[in-house]
């Protein structure tokens, strides 16, 4: 059981060990395990070889070719000298140009419609029948009930003074109301 734990520890830390990234205590521990357990030793060899090869091969991957860096420097120099501009990505360019086109179309359409004298048809909602009938069938002798006067309490130095300060509001005489848009009767 302990051996298994040691081997697991070894497998877990072997990459850091071959890369020299362990603390001195961990390094000593790893060295002991590698020496004592063949499984750890095999893993160590494998990882060490892979690390060496990667460290040898990767630095030459993508090495610049002759003149490439000078050409890039000329581009960079030019870009750095330029004043700051807003750089848009391709997708942003598409979205902005579509929006601009739509806006232009709307302006053109509105201008054309306005100049050609085309009027827009606005459908007015029907007058509520109840309201019209209410006006028409109202009793001519009917009087609007008076709203009771409002009592106002005014605080004075000697106490409260109550008065009918607010008079009745004059209501609109709805009996004289003529509906300018009478509802057509059926059959008319």
């Amino acid at each position, binding site marked *: 059981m302990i051996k298994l734990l040691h081997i697991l520890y070894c497998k*877990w830390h072997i*990459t*850091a060990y071959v*890369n020299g*990234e362990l603390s001195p205590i961990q390094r000593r521990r790893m060295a002991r395990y590698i020496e004592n357990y063949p499984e750890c030793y095999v893993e160590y060899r*494998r*990882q060490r*070889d*892979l*690390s060496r*090869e*990667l*460290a040898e*091969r*990767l*630095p*030459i*991957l*993508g*090495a*610049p*070719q*002759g*003149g*490439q*860096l*000078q050409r*890039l*420097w000329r*581009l*960079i*120099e030019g*870009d*750095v000298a330029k004043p*700051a501009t807003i750089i848009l*990505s391709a997708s942003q360019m598409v979205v902005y140009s579509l929006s601009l086109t739509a806006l232009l179309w709307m302006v053109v359409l509105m201008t054309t419609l306005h100049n050609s004298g085309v009027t827009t048809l606005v459908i007015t909602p029907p007058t509520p029948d109840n309201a019209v009938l209410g006006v028409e069938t109202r009793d001519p002798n009917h009087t609007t009930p008076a709203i009771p006067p409002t009592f106002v309490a005014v605080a004075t130095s000697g106490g409260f003074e109550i008065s009918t300060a607010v008079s009745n509001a004059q209501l609109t005489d709805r009996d004289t109301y003529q509906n300018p848009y009478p509802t057509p009767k059926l059959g008319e």
Partner: protein
Amino acid sequence: MSDQQPIINGMDEINDLIQTCLTGDQTAYTALYDQFATGIYRLCYSLVLQRQDAEDVMQETFVYAFKNLYRFDANRASFKTWLYTIAVSRCRNTYRRKRLPNIDFGQLFRLEIAAPRSERPEAELARKAAEDALRQALYALTPPLREAVVLRYGHGLTYREIADVMGCPAKTAESRIRLAHQHLKHILQAHGQGLLEELLSF
């Protein structure tokens, strides 16, 4: 400016160069570019695995860095780490835009390493095969694992520096390297017998 990387030793010299750049000295910009251009191009190429994309990313990286040089704080990170962070971030934008598939190995395995002229045809073929195997293996890794392994082995960064560049804890960087190792081992073994041996024995 030349393709040969000039030797500027020490962070102090780099920081002096940056201060000179900030005064508007054009030659200092050139010197700074000369110092880091090769490394940045290799990094970009190893991550995006296409020449044109690598050039675009490198250009964006330097333009951004030079325009924002006043933002660089030497107390927080080295200039190399700062520059690499910008480059990795730009590479991520590129492969996010391109949505690089991780399985299809077609079309892009063309070798770009200038071979020594004295190389014999067989040796050149073997070298090409080994490089293609490595490139395929890198391509099959997920972007975070590829970044970790390229920064570690391609540029010799420590786990701490990798964590800074990738914007993750050091333990995460360590895990990514370990996982990349496992994947590389499996990928290289899975791609026909001998690819791993070819790579390891070449």
